């Protein structure tokens, strides 16, 4: 393995995509290959590269919110069916992530944060990533339909198309509001988890969907504020690039203000109890406090470490984990009473 890693890291067999050719699926060698590797065909992709295509770190959040939706839903489902639902949510998310990286290989190559992914680093052929993404997506939807229910399968299919087509292909390169609509893709897991138990869509899972939908813009834009140079370099119209920092900070604040009452609605309508209600109030209050700090701030003329923005991004991840954990704790507590 050390051998392969060393060879791969050195770029001896790398066939990096040339910028501008990616969307058409073209491949080109950007640099002469080192001897003696130059004479050989590139190595096949390692299974770890396929695993990396599924964006495992993003998948943990998807699995967590899906599991929380499933555990918080009223009713009971067989543990095997519950496991199948979560597995299909994870595999579906992995398939969508692979399709996202297939389409954005040339963009990823231009950004420091993503340049080492399997496709831009030249460790995998582009068609393999596409086939892998399509295969995972179909397997997840079919298994969900056969094992859980077809409403879940339909929502999962919509979420994959939403992320891979609506967000990745259509919106992301076209509008600075891409994240707002694209955030919906990440909001599906708790909805699917809930429907896996109940078999139908009600107001509560829609509220959980709305919670993640409203959380995504401040979460992502706080990240985009301190990595905006990368997005600008590859021509992605992220809000800070197109509308500027002050407008982005204003938008972060607006969405954070809206998030506070929205997070409390499940409590107000009686869909969740006091554990969730108080947790949501404290968590969303702190979220808003950090957003106010980011929203009213102006970047220092030089050597700005962007600490408030980085803190807000880190907290936003923690926020989602804790608020969904509180929802589950609330349901477990209600069951004990």
């Amino acid at each position, binding site marked *: 393995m050390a051998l392969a890693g060393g060879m791969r890291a050195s770029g001896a067999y790398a066939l990096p995509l040339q910028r501008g050719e990616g969307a058409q699926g073209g491949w080109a060698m950007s640099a002469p290959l080192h001897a003696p590797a130059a004479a050989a065909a590139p190595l096949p*992709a*390692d*299974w770890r590269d396929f695993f990396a295509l599924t964006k495992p770190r993003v998948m943990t959040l998807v699995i967590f919110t899906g599991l929380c939706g499933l555990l918080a839903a009223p009713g009971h489902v067989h543990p095997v069916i519950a496991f*199948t639902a979560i*597995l299909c949510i994870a595999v579906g998310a992995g398939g969508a992530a692979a399709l996202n990286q297939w389409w954005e290989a040339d963009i990823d190559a231009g950004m420091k944060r993503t340049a080492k992914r399997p496709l831009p680093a030249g460790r995998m052929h582009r068609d393999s990533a596409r086939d892998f993404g399509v295969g995972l997506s179909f397997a997840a939807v079919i298994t969900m339909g*056969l*094992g859980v229910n077809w409403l879940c399968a339909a929502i999962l299919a919509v979420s994959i198309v939403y992320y891979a087509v609506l967000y990745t292909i259509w919106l992301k390169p076209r509008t600075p509001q891409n994240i707002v609509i694209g955030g919906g893709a990440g909001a599906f897991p708790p909805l699917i988890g809930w429907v896996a138990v109940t078999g139908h869509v009600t107001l509560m899972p829609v509220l959980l969907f709305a919670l993640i939908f409203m959380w995504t813009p401040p979460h992502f834009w706080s990240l985009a504020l301190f990595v905006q140079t990368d997005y600008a370099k590859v021509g992605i119209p992220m809000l800070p690039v197109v509308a500027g920092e002050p407008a982005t900070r204003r938008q972060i604040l607006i969405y954070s203000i809206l998030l506070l009452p929205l997070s409390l609605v499940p409590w107000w309508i009686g869909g969740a109890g006091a554990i969730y209600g108080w947790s949501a109030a404290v968590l969303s209050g702190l979220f808003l406090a950090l957003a106010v700090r980011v929203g009213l701030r102006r970047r220092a003329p030089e050597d700005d470490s962007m600490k408030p923005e980085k803190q807000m991004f880190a907290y936003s991840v923690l926020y989602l984990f804790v608020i969904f954990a509180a929802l589950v704790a609330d349901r477990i507590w209600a069951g004990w009473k």
Partner: protein
Amino acid sequence: MSDGPEPVDIAAERRRIIAARNKVLALVLLGFVVLFFAITIAKMQH
């Protein structure tokens, strides 16, 4: 003595990668079979 990259047996490396991929694929397929068996039992109980 040379400071250049060490010569590498490409064919052996290719075989190693493909063998590892095949093992992972076999495990995934086995997991799939076990999963559908478990789903069938769970649905029958339900």
